[in-house]
């Protein structure tokens, strides 16, 4: 592979260097696939959306502003395609993206403090496969807009500014949505682990 940047590869591609595009696709094969699998909860769906995203990159290559970073642009496209996929599949109502942050309407509010909740983040004696099943259950059950921002921030290591660019939301919303996503994830993970432990205690024969 060449040492050229992503941006240089895309510019080379739109200038007619056909071999630059496969190199770009290969670079993101693992990262984007994993992001989409976590976002969509299924490898097959992730593969479809991966192809849609790169098709869009190909179609929009002319409009790419080479002074900006390629990665946030790609993830903007991929996240949009993933949301479209959700809508097409009617797996989640489109309104989930407009769910009010903190619209409690009398619902119970819990204040998460990560230090005091920290014991729930260790493996809690779970087998590797049990951990994986629980993690999938918890990540898949997060509302789409929380899952998306958590993955972009932690998994893709995008900065708040890049996330704001990718999702086309203001910086303040990135912060409040990410805080809410971390709190929600922490709460769900703790609940899932204690639920699993309770089940194991009631049925000890399933534990080694």
């Amino acid at each position: 592979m060449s040492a050229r940047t992503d941006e240089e590869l895309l510019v080379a591609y739109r200038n007619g260097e056909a071999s630059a595009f496969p190199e770009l696709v290969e670079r993101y094969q693992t990262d984007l696939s994993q992001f989409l699998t976590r976002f969509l909860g299924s490898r097959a769906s992730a593969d479809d959306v991966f192809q849609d995203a790169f098709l869009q990159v190909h179609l929009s290559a002319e409009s790419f502003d080479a002074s900006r970073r390629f990665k946030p642009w790609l993830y903007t496209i991929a996240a949009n395609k993933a949301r479209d996929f959700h809508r097409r599949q009617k797996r989640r109502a489109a309104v989930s993206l407009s769910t009010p942050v903190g619209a409690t309407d009398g619902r119970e509010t819990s204040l998460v403090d990560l230090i005091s909740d920290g014991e729930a983040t260790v493996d809690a004696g779970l087998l590797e496969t049990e951990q994986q099943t629980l993690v999938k259950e918890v990540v898949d059950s997060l509302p789409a807009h929380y899952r998306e921002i958590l993955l972009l921030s932690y998994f893709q290591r995008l900065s708040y500014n890049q996330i704001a660019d990718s999702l086309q939301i203001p910086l303040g919303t990135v912060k409040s949505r990410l805080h809410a996503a971390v709190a929600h994830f922490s709460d769900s993970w703790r609940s899932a682990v204690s639920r699993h432990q309770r089940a194991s205690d009631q049925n000890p024969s399933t534990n080694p």
Partner: protein
Amino acid sequence: MSHAEDERSDPSTPQRISRLSEADKAACDRLLEDGLAPDAAPRNEREAALLNLLEVIDRYPDGEPRSDLVASTLARIDDEEAKRQRDWTVSPDVAEKARLIRLPDSFAIAAALLLAVSIGVPLYNQLDSRQEIASSQMRQQAIGQAIAGFASDNGDALPIDLDLFGSDGAPTPANTPAGHLNPVHHPWSSHLGVLVSEERIPEGMLYTKIEAQANGERGQRSLVAYRVPFQISAHRFAGTYKPGSFLLGDCNPVIEAIRQNGQPCDSGVGANNHGRTRLVVINFRLETSILRSPWLENDSSSTEDNIWVAHDYAHDAATETLTPEDHHDTVLAH
């Protein structure tokens, strides 16, 4: 789709809302704001707890990517390109026929153009009006989301800028006399300015620049009206108002008329930006509606409520009666 999936994405499903403590929010921002460094080392116990939690995501069982993913992606792009090429190719026969336009064809084309204009102009106006409605809906949806985010970060409080009360004697939020909130004299939607300063929305979403004023200064015009509280201390996102009650709307035509001419207009009309025939509003559930009239059924007292003015508003009684009478009296002002 499983029922469980339905439930988790339904915003009306009762659920517990989790919030990070302020210390955790700060730790989160320190670690993630500039992008998580690959070799990020926690500086304290709190950051370690956060990283510990997030590392859980690494255990997600996503397996190895499909070995032919790159090849199939490139093949798909080739297919799409080939299809596009086919769609854009004009066969030689068709191109030849296109050159043979005769005089009768010209009359037919002129007639068709005339017909298109006679249908097109009203259609264009209709589309323009729909675009205005869509624009109001999108604006209110974005501001509504930002208000919800603000409330989430501020213990459910709705945006209020106390500095804006300075000239009225700076009432305290705990017990603000309703008289200070008369929106006729108060730039009520300016309280949303905090959403701009906190970068939750761009300024252009709240205001539009207007050309030179009578005094020669350039100014700005509000684009949205905001719920006027009966009491500031109870101006909260949840608890005070009914979820279906209105949070934002188009600019209030009664207030616009008073500010421009010193006289109110008919309070039964729609918003000025929709030709006074419609208005767009958004409720506390962040659902937008297009109304033909500002009159609403008021559940609590079986009377009607006009959202441009207060319950006790009397058209002849001049301009001092736009202050809400209680928490259920909807008044949207800018």
